[in-house]
């Protein structure tokens, strides 16, 4: 086994890990506030990638501006979805909210993916790169795009952590996730924070989609794998735990990259690296249904 090959795989794993963490943090955030698993998260990621692409090619945005623009657009779209489709989740008259959440978000994913197939076309698109060129450290060569993704992704995650832990809105979100009624008693408008949580989760997924687009390309079904991987991460890190999903995101990215490096048959390794993550998910669910680092108060009924 070549040492530099391992190093390259480890670096790639870290970059993918950042992307996974961005997607998974959104799933966790939405779960802890709305108490639903967002099965349409991968499609918001896809939407973010395409929005950035069209902002660059049609509106002439610079790549970084397109990233911010796509986050803003998908943030607004998230509010729209939450206001139109998810309000029955808070109504006391709705029975079996779990079921409603599963089917509505699953249907939303189906709708978005098929709409994208028509509007954007089935062919893979590739936006211009954020930072052309290659970074060399000794024998290790990494494209600047990957470095850019890792840096911006990490900054976004740090910003989210700051928002969740140091600002009054973040504290309010945490309060709503712990107890909706108590939050209402101290004057938090829970309805508004439902929208905020869904929109922030959507915007983070959009950022991940826009960041990954120059490295892998865009296609309407690009969201399926990150979506499933984000469940792996969220289950590993514990439903509702932001820190846990960040850690698990890195872990899964690295584990998959090194799994690919160590398996002798390369084509098989590529397809089984996804099955590997999913297998881990199944085993964790069997052994500890709340995830490895799940917080007790957000356990689903």
């Amino acid at each position: 086994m070549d040492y530099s090959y391992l190093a390259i795989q480890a670096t790639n794993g870290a970059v993918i890990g950042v992307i996974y963490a961005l997607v998974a943090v959104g799933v966790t955030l939405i779960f802890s506030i709305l108490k639903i698993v967002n099965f349409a998260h991968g499609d918001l990621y896809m939407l973010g990638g395409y929005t950035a692409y069209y902002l660059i090619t049609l509106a002439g945005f610079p790549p970084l501006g397109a990233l911010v623009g796509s986050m803003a657009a998908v943030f607004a779209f998230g509010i729209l979805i939450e206001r139109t489709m998810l309000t029955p989740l808070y109504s006391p008259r709705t029975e079996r909210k779990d079921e409603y959440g599963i089917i509505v978000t699953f249907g939303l994913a189906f709708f978005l993916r098929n709409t994208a197939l028509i509007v954007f076309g089935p062919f893979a698109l590739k936006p211009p790169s954020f930072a052309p060129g290659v970074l060399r450290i000794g024998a290790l060569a990494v494209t600047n795009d990957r470095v850019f993704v890792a840096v911006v992704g990490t900054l976004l995650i740090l910003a989210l952590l700051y928002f969740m832990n140091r600002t009054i809105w973040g504290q309010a979100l945490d309060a709503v996730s712990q107890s909706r009624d108590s939050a209402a008693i101290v004057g938090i408008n829970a309805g508004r924070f439902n929208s905020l949580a869904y929109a922030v989760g959507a915007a983070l997924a959009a950022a991940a989609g826009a960041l990954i687009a120059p490295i892998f390309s865009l296609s309407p079904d690009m969201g399926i794998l990150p979506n499933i991987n984000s469940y792996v991460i969220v289950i590993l890190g514990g439903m509702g735990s932001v820190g846990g999903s960040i850690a698990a995101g890195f872990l899964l990215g690295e584990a998959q990259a090194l799994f690919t490096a160590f398996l002798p048959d390369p084509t098989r390794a590529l397809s089984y690296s996804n099955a590997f993550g999913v297998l881990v998910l199944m085993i964790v669910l069997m052994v500890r249904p709340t995830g490895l680092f799940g917080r007790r108060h957000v356990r689903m009924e």
Partner: protein
Amino acid sequence: MRGLPTYLLASLVLAGLVYAHGFNSYWMHVTIIAMFYAILAASWTLLSGYAGLYSLGHMAFASIGAYTSALLIQWTGMPTILGMASGVVFCTVVGAWIGWVCLRMTGPYLAIFTLAFSEIVRIVFSTEDEVTQGMAGLHTVFLFHTDSRIPYFYTAIGLLVFSLAVMGFIVHSRWGLFLRSIREEEQAAAASGVRVAYFRILVFAVASGFAALAGVFYGHYLGILTPSLGSLDLMIIVVVMAVIGGMERIPTAVGGAIGIEFLQEYLRAYGEWRLVIFGLVLLFTMRFARNGLLTPLWLQFVRLGEVRRPVSAAAQAAAAAGEVGPQGSGGS
């Protein structure tokens, strides 16, 4: 007239059987595929609508059953019927195993677990292409050695009627009541003496068996199998059919499956837009008519023969009808 709806339905099926040779080959194919979906939608409804277990891995069982049958026949040269039966039996066992494994999971956890299971099945089937031919497709033995679709048509009707009879029997018996009590409140059901674990495993096994039955028939009807039989896209189509029809009753889910499949062919000119439209209809159904679009029609239909009876008898009939199906839960 008592039992009028039953007679009406039976005569409709009979008319279909008698005039089968009058259909052209294309619409007969559509009808056969519609029945394939109907079995899937009905068994998914048994699992999700009645027992409240939201499995997203239902198509994986259809896929496992179809591949088991095709490969067994290929390896051992056993008769087609025997291969199909062993595919179904194998899937029932796997279904029971999955049901046992996810006994502790509810709601979204179960959905994620079954989603993961179906992804693994799909990845394995498409990667191990020395055995399964991967995405190139595995050639299967045809069930009948004839060019005509009529034998397949009769078989499909037979399988659908058999599946509906068995599932209808389960649903109308005490077991159906137990399943619905598990859906509403697992702990309360357990406290009332329902063997929750036993029935959860049982319903998983039965539903998986019927999914495999549909899959096995599909494989030996088309003559070719690809891993996309177990894909999420097909799973979501089954969910769309059951939800739009009404997933709390088996007949409405079956109606949804047949209706959507025919609409899909009828609207062929609209190409990809059909799926977008179905997605939108699904969202609107969930948002505004959670009991399904066919449920009100079905309830009217069931009461056809009972309108002009004396009050006391009518009340009894209404009570009986109320026992048959869950009354509009969630319909705010």
